[in-house]
């Protein structure tokens, strides 16, 4: 094809060609126009590059990572790709337990002090040694007032970082703050790295299993295996993350063989097709992403707890999971997934029971005005995004609530408009998901009275003094056993009071070529196990 292009280009510009056929003469201006278009087009073509360097794995992703620098990364793909490039003091394993990574050992001295001993001999990709000074710099650069880092708020409890020698650090908090340990999963950059809002193309070096080779804006990110990685050189030569926004096109690329690996962001309807028409190795694994119905508790109907309980009883989650989600979800009874250490299994559950839902609504004072007739008990609006699956789920919910006499008006919006309404409290009901939940302190962010936007994510304006007290206690208690007791009580309150109606935990869906070996799915969708992945035979098989 490339030869053909060159040939046409040469032929068009050659004098013989044009004079022989008189194409560029003033008598044929429209043909000249054709040729002008053709030349412009050919000139703008670029040679077909080899999308598959030998030994590389190509992963299809839905959106291009906005910012790989771990101090600024917030979107899922930036975090996941960043985790392959940067190391952190601690790292969550496949059971969501924090394990030392850059740290060889770590100790909790008291409820405000943590000491870390770093591994010796670790270097950044540019060859510079990684020391305590780099770790200290990473955290302190975020705390700079002009850093513009989205993680600055999370580090607020940090009072000081003391460097003890070249490989030891002491973190001191201003107050006991148990969830702060999650901040030790922050990727470390070399001391002196400029803030990334200077220029994205000067992304600091990391020390992780893969090195950033190139970023083609909007198209793909290429990582090369780090041959000097302290935990062993990755078996893959590298990784290419190809941005293919349309899920169906990603599936077709997989079928064509141009993509080897996909995780999530696929329409459930596509899975049976993939299963039948490709040799894909498809697996679904328990995840932590929690789907719920958010409720506006300032609404005169919805502030009644019996109405919320009726909503929970009226939703047939099992049917939605089976028919719309094609099984890639598990019925949820609360925000924390069973894999979470603080998960409490003994909370109140609300199985599908439309009769009970009707009874609860009657008890709440919202009798059905005409029995089984068309008039509803009350009307509510339900906001969701304009993604096809979300709209279909909303229609299913509408149908189910109609069975108990609640009329739902489904309104779907473009994401930013929808999210803006949700934050402002401009809704009756909406559905969203919480992604990447690890520490139970997330309850504080979502349900504490002090967390009403803009100070948090209590979008339903839920107020419960007992819960506030428990959440404060859970935040200030360092001992995990005691925290578990506290959060068990909090989960019981939430399951009774239902400021959210739990729907399901999404499963992580992995679609990969059968010749990819060694991938371990993580509940939060982390891709760190790609460092241990290898090809069996040739990549194209």
């Amino acid at each position, binding site marked *: *094809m490339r030869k053909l292009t060159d040939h046409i280009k040469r032929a068009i510009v050659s004098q013989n060609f044009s004079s022989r056929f008189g194409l560029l003469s003033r008598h044929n201006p*429209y043909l000249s126009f054709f040729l002008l278009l*053709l030349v*412009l087009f050919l000139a703008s*073509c670029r040679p077909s590059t080899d999308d598959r360097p030998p030994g590389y794995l190509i992963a299809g992703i839905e959106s291009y990572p906005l910012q790989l620098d771990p101090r600024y990364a917030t979107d899922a793909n930036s975090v996941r790709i960043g985790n392959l490039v940067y190391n952190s003091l601690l790292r969550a394993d496949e059971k969501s337990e924090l394990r030392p990574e850059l740290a060889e050992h770590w100790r909790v001295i008291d409820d405000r002090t943590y000491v870390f001993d770093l591994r010796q001999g670790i270097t950044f990709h540019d060859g510079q040694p990684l020391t305590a000074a780099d770790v200290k710099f990473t955290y302190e650069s975020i705390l700079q007032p002009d850093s513009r880092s989205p993680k600055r708020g999370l580090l607020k409890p940090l009072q000081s970082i003391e460097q003890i020698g070249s490989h030891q650090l002491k973190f001191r908090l201003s107050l006991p703050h148990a969830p702060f340990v999650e901040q030790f999963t922050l990727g470390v950059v070399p001391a002196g790295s400029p803030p990334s809002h200077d220029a994205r193309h000067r992304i600091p070096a990391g020390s992780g299993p893969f090195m950033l080779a190139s970023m083609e804006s*909007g198209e793909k990110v290429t990582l090369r295996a780090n041959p000097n990685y302290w935990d062993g050189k990755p078996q893959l030569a590298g990784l290419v993350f190809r941005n293919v926004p349309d899920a169906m*096109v990603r599936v077709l690329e997989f079928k064509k063989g141009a993509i080897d690996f996909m995780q999530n962001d696929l329409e459930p309807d596509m899975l049976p097709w993939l299963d039948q028409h490709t040799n894909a190795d498809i697996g679904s694994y328990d995840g932590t992403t929690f789907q719920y119905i958010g409720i506006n508790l300032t609404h005169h109907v919805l502030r009644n707890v019996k109405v919320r309980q009726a909503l929970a009883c009226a939703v047939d989650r099992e049917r939605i999971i089976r028919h719309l989600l094609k099984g890639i979800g598990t019925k949820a009874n609360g925000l924390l997934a069973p894999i979470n250490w603080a998960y409490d299994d003994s909370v109140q559950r609300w199985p599908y029971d439309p009769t009970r839902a009707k009874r609860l609504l009657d008890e709440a004072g919202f009798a059905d005005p005409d029995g089984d007739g068309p008039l509803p008990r009350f009307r509510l609006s339900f906001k969701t995004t304009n993604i096809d699956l979300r709209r279909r789920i909303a229609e299913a919910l509408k149908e189910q609530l109609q069975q108990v006499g609640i009329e739902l008006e489904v309104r779907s919006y473009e994401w930013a408009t929808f999210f803006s309404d949700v934050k402002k409290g401009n809704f009756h009901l909406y559905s969203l998901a919480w992604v990447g939940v690890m520490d139970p302190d997330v309850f504080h962010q979502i349900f504490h009275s002090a967390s009403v936007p803009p100070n948090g994510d209590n979008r339903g304006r839920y107020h419960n003094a007992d819960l506030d007290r428990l959440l404060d206690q859970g935040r200030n208690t360092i001992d995990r056993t005691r925290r578990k007791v506290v959060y068990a009580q909090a989960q019981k309150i939430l399951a009774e009071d239902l400021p959210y109606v739990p729907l399901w935990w999404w499963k992580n869906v992995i679609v990969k070529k059968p010749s990819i070996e060694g991938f371990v799915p993580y509940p939060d969708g982390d891709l760190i196990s790609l460092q241990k992945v290898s090809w069996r035979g040739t990549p194209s098989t």
Partner: protein
Amino acid sequence: MKRYFIHRLLLLLPTLLGAITLVFVLIHLIPGDPVDVMLGETAGAADKAELRRSLGFDQPLATQYRSFLVNLAFGNLGRSLYEQTSVATIISARLPATMQLALCAMLMAVLISFLLATMAAKRRGGWIDRSALVFSLLGLSLPNFWLGPLLMILFSIQLGWLPVSGRGGLSHVVLPAFTLGLGMAAILTRILRASLLHVSREDYVQTARAKGLSERQVWLKHMLRNALLSVITIMSLQFGSLLAGSLITETIFSWPGIGRLTVQAIQTRDYPLVQGCILVIAASYVLINFLTDILYKIVDPRITYAK
């Protein structure tokens, strides 16, 4: 003539200003806060307020607009809120892809429509004519988001001839260009066929035949050339729809152009980038219209731009 062109050039300025003002107002009026997207869920209200202040989003809209225009006057389109590079750099990296796609779509549309319309007009009422009309109808009815995947399944998966998506060599551009250009091809086919049928009844065509000119000469020199004026007008107007259509086509085909960039910028409320993209699209549109006026003169020397 010269005076006319200077006049037209000066008219470009208010057109562009109008377009950019409209975009500026609309993007600021629709719900959604870029600071929320930039700082994420966990940032405190104080941090958000501080960022809003440092970006100038706390200023009244009129002040922001004034400062935007002043920067624009100095050729500064601003910096993207997320990509942290200048908007001009980002757009210039993506512009060749969009121009390649639009040019190729136009080229395909022109080739298909000239071939079909000429054959249809030559054999009016025949099966080719009827096929051309069916083609026009289909081309206008099939939406890009449906046609694109259909072509992928057929040509990439079933036949294996072309790549599914992405930008690369010549083979990568075929499917997106056809998807994007089909609507234009359909319109051009209809217009050109009608124009050819119209001019075929003109006296000068009969005269040309009476002079003993070959049929090829009659068609090329007398009919096609005279039928071209209306086609050029439609082409220039359709170029805008090619750029607009690229928003969908580029997303479907993972084509890294301005269209996809605009969609992404709107989703993340990247105000400077949205403004920059729309400015470039609007500028391309008015520029093409300007060039069309010049083309008129070349195609039909009788046209004069007297004062």
